[in-house]
């Protein structure tokens, strides 16, 4: 494992579904439950809107970790979106792992609108994991960082 740079801060993109996880993030905020500023949230209507290309593109552009948050299985606002997302992400993550890319850089978490504390805990944990992994070098070597 590479040495962690002293003030290394990872870049983390979080895709949150509008109905549960984005609201859960809001609740974390109104409960003042902090998590690192490295986490930046992108709002999507449903976890099933997250295209694998978004994740790969984020890595290409310099992200060190990508996390997808959606409603708990069974609670999807659109009834079945997160079930599709679950299959897609399982296969995609398994493929990344198969290519030798650190499995821990990608994650799916189910966070409901009431789980502000969980949202914060998940983000803290994920940021810690990604920080330990260090900069994302495996997906490419010549990442265009402009």
């Amino acid at each position, binding site marked *: 494992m590479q040495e962690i740079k002293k003030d290394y801060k990872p870049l983390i993109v979080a895709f949150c579904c509008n109905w549960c996880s984005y609201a859960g993030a809001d609740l974390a905020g109104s409960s003042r439950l902090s998590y690192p500023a490295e986490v930046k949230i992108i709002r999507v209507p449903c976890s099933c809107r997250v295209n*694998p*290309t978004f994740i*790969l*593109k984020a*890595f*290409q552009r310099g992200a060190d970790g990508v996390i997808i948050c959606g409603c708990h*299985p*069974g609670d999807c606002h659109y009834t*079945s979106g997160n*079930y*599709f997302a*679950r*299959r*897609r*992400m*399982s*296969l*995609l*993550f*398994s*493929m*990344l*792992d*198969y*290519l*030798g*890319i*650190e*499995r821990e850089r*990608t*994650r*799916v978490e189910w966070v409901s609108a009431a789980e502000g504390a969980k949202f914060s805990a998940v983000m803290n944990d994920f940021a810690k994991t990604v920080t330990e992994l260090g900069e994302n070098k*495996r*997906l*490419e*070597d*010549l*990442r*265009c960082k402009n």
Partner: protein
Amino acid sequence: MQKLNELALEKAKTLLANGTVARVLGWKKGELGYDLEPAVFYSESDLEGFIYNAFSGANLSKYLIEESKKEGKVLVFLKPCDSYSFNQLVKEHRIVKENVYTVGIECQGKLDVKKLKEKGIEIVDGVIENVDDVTVISLGKEYNFVKEEVLLGKCSVCEKHLLSYDEVISLHDKRTPKLDRFEIVKKLEAMTADERYAFWKGELSKCIRCNACRNVCPACNCLKCVFDNDASGIASKANSDSFEEKLFHIIRAFHVAGRCTDCGECSRVCPQAIPLHLLNRKFISDINRLYGEFQAGEDDVTKGPLTAYTTGDAEPSEVFGGNK
């Protein structure tokens, strides 16, 4: 085995002559004996160029997307593996089934030109095929091989059988594969992440983005590929950095996941000999393991595994592609 060619030719002639079909989709002789190409034949005289032999590896089903739209019926010869692609394309409404006359044709595995060249055979004058072995005649000399030595990778593990057709030309039972289709996938999975990374880095960095894999793949049948479409956000004509080839191959494999019949054409045509089918097979093996056995193209109605779900599916956190 030579009999198959005669029967196929005869079938094509008859059906053309009696007006059942307006044209025939088959394989055309090349100049070097092994460079057969897919071709459309319109008349008996055209058919002089027709041949079906141990080099007829090309999957004809994708050509039907265009051919089945034209006036009149088209006769197509489908090897077992081609027919799965055919079904999948029918399921996706890409082939007008009513315009196709399908003849299933026996296949005991096709030969890998690259492997022959490695054995020093540059020119092929003739080929005598049996179920388990094959004799290649080159410059007057006969070379006998056990099938496994010279078969295309996809053929040495082929478990596909003849599906339903308008007619079937078959003289022998299909040989059973001696190798396990997922053997190499399992081997890769057993490696450490570093070893896997090194393997794929080595393989994928060979990619020259010639797009041959995409062009031949029956599942890659979009009107316009996302990689050619600026609005997709991932368009690229060539690899601008080493990330691009990974992105291209991961996305391509993902787009065909659940639709890929494992016909192996991608690897057959890759000029850089990248084992691209190992990406697709990884998805297939994961799908089988996680969501139940599924073979794309086995029929033309069942929903694909990525457009279905069960409430008890595995969580992404439980799913690993290899050694943890």
